[in-house]
């Protein structure tokens, strides 16, 4: 890498929340500009989308024909590509359109009076479906600490460590009462990766999986436990097909229980 590494933050189809999580670093972000040059980060001001950079962070999923081209350009301009958030890493909530029963054309017609002007793909797909991705950071939104750690690691030329152990470990470390045990609340914690700080259990509700699957999710076992709590197959499927519906570990059992199949171009 060059002396002062250059970074970029690109937006694709998203809610901007992951970029905001970076902006929320506040003064730390300004300090960061002492060790890296922020070439492109439109939400924060700098705009040079075509610049060559050392690390490109990508927020958002691919949902339009134009985004298909843009992501190729990002790849060829960047030494490392890091996806940030559920949208970029698994297709995000908007990937609910990827199931066969969802007719995008009909949807577009029902929302827009002139659907011929809306250019949108049938699917919302993760960045890694289109280009080689060097590192994936999960979460909806990501935890901004992960960004700092990643930039530091890449600046020092070490591989960033990605923890993918289960949320339950983080939850127990914090001393939360388990909502599944104490309240019979279904919780995706056992099959979700840590990183958020076990936010949902700490306010007394079950995790809804916004950080995506952990290393080895035993989704079948959890689904069984959920049905023991009285959930119907379709209730369990909706839990799995939510923020990270396309993620391996959530997708398959969700398909099975919800009787869903993917469109061919989402596979």
């Amino acid at each position, binding site marked *: 890498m060059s002396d002062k590494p250059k970074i970029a933050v690109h937006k694709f189809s998203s809610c*901007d929340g992951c970029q905001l999580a970076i902006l*929320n670093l506040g003064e730390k972000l300004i300090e960061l500009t002492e060790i890296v040059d922020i070439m492109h980060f439109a939400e924060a*001001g700098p705009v040079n*989308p075509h610049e060559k950079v050392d690390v490109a962070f990508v927020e958002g999923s691919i949902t339009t024909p134009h985004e298909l081209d843009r992501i190729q350009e990002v790849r060829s301009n960047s030494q490392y590509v890091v996806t940030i958030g559920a949208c970029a890493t698994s297709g995000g909530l908007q990937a609910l359109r990827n199931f066969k029963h969802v007719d995008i054309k009909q949807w577009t017609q029902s929302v827009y*009076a002139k659907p011929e002007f809306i250019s949108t793909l049938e699917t919302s797909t993760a960045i890694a479906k289109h280009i080689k991705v060097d590192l994936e950071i999960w979460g909806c939104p990501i935890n901004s600490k992960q960004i700092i750690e990643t930039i530091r690691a890449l600046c020092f030329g070490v591989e960033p460590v990605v923890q993918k152990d289960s949320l339950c470990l983080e939850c127990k470390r914090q001393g939360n009462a388990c909502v599944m045990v104490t309240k019979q609340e279904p919780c995706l914690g056992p099959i979700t990766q840590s990183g958020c*700080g076990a936010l949902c259990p700490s306010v007394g509700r079950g995790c809804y999986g916004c950080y995506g699957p952990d290393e080895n999710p035993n989704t079948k076992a959890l689904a069984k436990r959920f049905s023991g709590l009285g959930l119907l197959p379709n209730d369990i499927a909706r839990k799995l097909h939510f923020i990270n519906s396309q993620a391996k570990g959530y997708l398959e059992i969700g398909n099975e229980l919800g009787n869903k199949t993917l469109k061919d171009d989402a596979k």
Partner: protein
Amino acid sequence: MTDININVPILARVEGEGALSIAIKNGEIETLNLSIYEPPRFFEKFLEGRRYDEVLDIVARICGICPVAYQMSAVQALEQIFQCTPNAWVRDMRRAFYCGEWLESHGLHVHMLAAPDFLGYGSAIEMAKDYPDEVKRGLRLHAIGNEILSLFGGRAVHPVGACVGGFYSAPSLKAVSDMLKKIECSMQDAEDLIAWTASLPMVERNQNFPSICIKHAREYPMNEGNIFSDTPALDLPKEHFDKHFKEEHVAHSTALHCLMDGTPYMLGPLSRINNCLYQLPENIQKLIAQTGIQFPSKNTFHSIVARAIEIYYALQEARRIFSDYSLPDESRSEFEVQSGIGYGCTEAPRGMLWHRYEVDEKGFITSSTIIPPTSQNQARIESDLMQSLHDFGLDKDQDAMRLHSEMVVRNYDPCISCSTHFLTLNVEKKP
């Protein structure tokens, strides 16, 4: 004079997909199209077939800058369907929660987006070199908003604490008293900010447009109220929104344009101050008087001052609510799921946000409509640009025109994706 087409691929954050195109013929603007392009994400459709208790986590994802606004409009609609009136504690805490979002969003907008325009910088990072204290003050105010959001929801972006009926849990006494201390320390920052924004170089002008916001008998608009317009006068229950307001899809944009009886209108902080200044606490009214700016104002550049005023108000309001905080018996009120139609209308930082839901007897959503402030403001932004560019001078250097247009657009804070810096300027001169 030659005909000129100006195409400004604006909206850095949408990377050249958004654009402002202006065609000038014989020294007059012939057409002006602002396209605020966000790829459609079809949230209204994703809601169908989902259960009521999934809605808040879905609608939050429409916008990372104002997730709470989406949650609060949705919760109001669902509670109307379930005939649930949340207890007084819930009502107060929702207001404090919402104050957090106003602080976060306004703090970001004033400092990261608008102020650099007024002072001639390309970004807040550049501005920070010459105005370190002001930028730091802004970051502090933005951060305190984030902290209030986290107090209720664990995090500032897509907080997890709100539910139909109230909150999953109540913040502890200690957490609230710590928060109060921080708020106390920020009051001076917020007060100084009002004077600072009022001292920025302002363009003088006066446009004609309806200022619209919700209005409540006893409080400054935020959580609930009727839909109110100054001129033409209008005062409607939220259920009657679609009798006067119609969304139209214009070809050049994925945003839908919304008009009130055929007229473009303005939402947001300036409209709220214009309509409801008298509902602000006296000390704030005094501060406003000291700025020398006359409200109601139809100069949209005063929006930055209106935002600063609301930052101060949100801080003071959160302080008021937290000062007599006590733990509730229940952090969420009970209700019975039933079928019906419900409406929600609250004030997002950038203006009125209207929702409508239909729910079946098991609590599953059968249809929904969401009308965000950006699509409501868009027609007004276009008419504003028409007038502003005309006043600015169509013969001006095109770079100057581009900067001026950006500044005009930014007054409306049209969701952050549309408000950052324009990319390049393409000029095409017709033969």
